[in-house]
């Protein structure tokens, strides 16, 4: 069975979610007796492409950006659908990010394929095809069946590790069999996010709630995040107050994240907040209220005043990292 993965790049190297996706795909290939093809757009470097071969990808198709510099859902969906047909894919797998969520459902319609996002782990059965996925914003899981021969899956964050599995990898040019629609919109301004660690890819996240009291106190969290190499996040009231930009809001109505370590400072642990962080591997809560619900979800907790705990914790982390 042929498996197609979409290997995106920001800049040059493949980000970790792509390597996790490749590792997942090669595990699935092993289960189904198939091979993994990756489609890559733009002008990747040969040495970066070879990296995919380390994770079980046996063929790479390189193709120009489908809509020039602007990202067009329609053109991408047509391109990926054409690649899926071109390699006779039974599975098209994507990592969980904004591009995938924009493109995968459109592509699934083109391929008349069943589509499932939030996939957690390898299929339970192949026939009928059954996978586990998360539902109710992390409050529950479901076993879902796909009834079509072609299946489009978005792998949930942090469900799969990168596993080295070197294979010989063939690199080819790919030309879609259909003409791609030209974008009929205009991008008039682009703002690149630079410097900071992207919240959704971060391994460690330091997060603040209303207990931080004011925007000025964020210095304490920035220091801790700096020491840990972490991204910053916050609860909803914090963005409602304008203390932090809304991109940092996590929870049911914000971003859903799944870092290795989530440090909640002055956050009570409302169910809407937990929805966005419950897939984190380890949660730490720092709160002065021993009854705060966040402690029911945390693996480690400190009951205390964050204005004292945070500077001490930052020092302790710095000390450890310098050893």
């Amino acid at each position, binding site marked *: 069975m042929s498996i197609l993965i979409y290997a995106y790049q*920001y800049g040059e190297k493949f980000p970790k979610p792509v390597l996790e996706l490749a590792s997942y795909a090669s595990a699935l290939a092993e289960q189904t007796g198939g091979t993994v093809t990756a489609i890559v757009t733009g002008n990747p470097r040969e040495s970066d492409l070879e990296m995919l071969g380390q994770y079980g990808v046996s063929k790479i198709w390189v193709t120009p950006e489908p809509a020039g510099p602007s990202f067009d*859902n*329609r053109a991408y*969906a047509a391109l990926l659908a054409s690649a899926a047909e071109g390699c006779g894919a039974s599975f098209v797998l994507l990592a969980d*990010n*904004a*591009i995938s*969520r*924009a*493109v995968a*459902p*459109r592509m*699934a*319609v*083109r391929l008349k394929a*069943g*589509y499932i*996002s*939030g996939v957690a782990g390898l299929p339970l059965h192949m026939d009928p095809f*059954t996978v*586990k996925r*998360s*539902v*109710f914003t992390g*409050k*529950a*899981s*479901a*076993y*879902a*069946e*796909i*009834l*079509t021969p072609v299946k489009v899956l978005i792998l949930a964050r942090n469900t799969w590790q990168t596993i080295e599995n070197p294979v010989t990898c063939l690199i080819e040019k790919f030309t879609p069999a259909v003409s791609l629609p030209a974008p*009929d*919109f205009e991008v008039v*301004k*682009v*703002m*690149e*996010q630079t410097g900071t660690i992207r919240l959704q890819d971060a391994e460690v996240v330091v997060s603040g709630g209303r207990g931080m009291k004011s925007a000025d106190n964020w210095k304490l969290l920035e220091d801790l995040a700096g020491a*840990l190499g972490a991204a910053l996040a916050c609860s909803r009231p914090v963005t*409602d107050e304008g203390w932090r930009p*809304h991109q940092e809001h996590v929870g049911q109505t914000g971003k859903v994240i799944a870092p*290795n*370590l989530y440090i909640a400072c002055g956050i009570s642990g409302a169910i809407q907040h937990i929805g966005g962080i*419950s897939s984190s*591997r*380890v949660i*730490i*809560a720092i709160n002065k209220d021993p009854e705060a619900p966040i402690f029911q*979800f945390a*693996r*480690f*907790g400190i009951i205390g005043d964050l204005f004292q*705990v945070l500077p*001490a*914790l930052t020092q*302790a982390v710095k000390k*450890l990292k310098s050893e």
Partner: protein
Amino acid sequence: MKILVCISVVPDTTTHIRFTDKMDALDTSGIQWIINPWDELALTRALEIREQPGSGVTQISVIHVGMKDTEPVIQKTLAVGADSACRINHAPADSLETASQIAEIVRKELFDLVMTGHDSADYNGSAVGEMLAELLGWASFSSISSLSVAGSVITLEREGDIRSETIIAKAPCVVTIQKGIAKDPRIPSLRGIMTARSKPLTVVEPVKCVPLTRFLRFENPAPRSQCRMVDASNVEELVNLLRNEANVL
């Protein structure tokens, strides 16, 4: 311009999710139903746009695919200012079914702009908007955090993974909205509630469509192990636990 806002009806965000004894369906007893928070924000923004001079918005309709018991929630959209509502009388099994039903209505009623949330807080398909656009052959824009309309010009802000962009788009198109699009949802006024009763809520029978996926059974998360407390004066211990026991540092 005619705007259509797609409304999903979901359990209140504070709901503890429980399933029936056979674990094959949501236990709906005691659930308070609400407009999916993203859809509520989409509707709020549509209403704001119409109030701006020169927007050229002539109609704001809402659509929902679901059974009769959701009507009180749909009434709320009329009470805050939507002009008309359509309910397609069907319990959809997957996102494609929902999108296919909505596509039928959009084709007939010639909307210019369709707004959906980026995710429905129930089954988190995260798919209806994009599927609908593909079925209609329209352009689509996702992760939209700002939207304005002047005549036929639609200005959008799209937040991607590494950059955000300002886009000028043409109707017709589908936009999938996320946080930032509007601040607080509107609360129905008494007068709004009264006038809502005289606004049209049309019920349409579904077209034939076969779902491509289905849910077999559900599961609640395994209970978390107890939180291990560390003394506030001993943060070094916490750091040690993180490195040596949890292996996250």
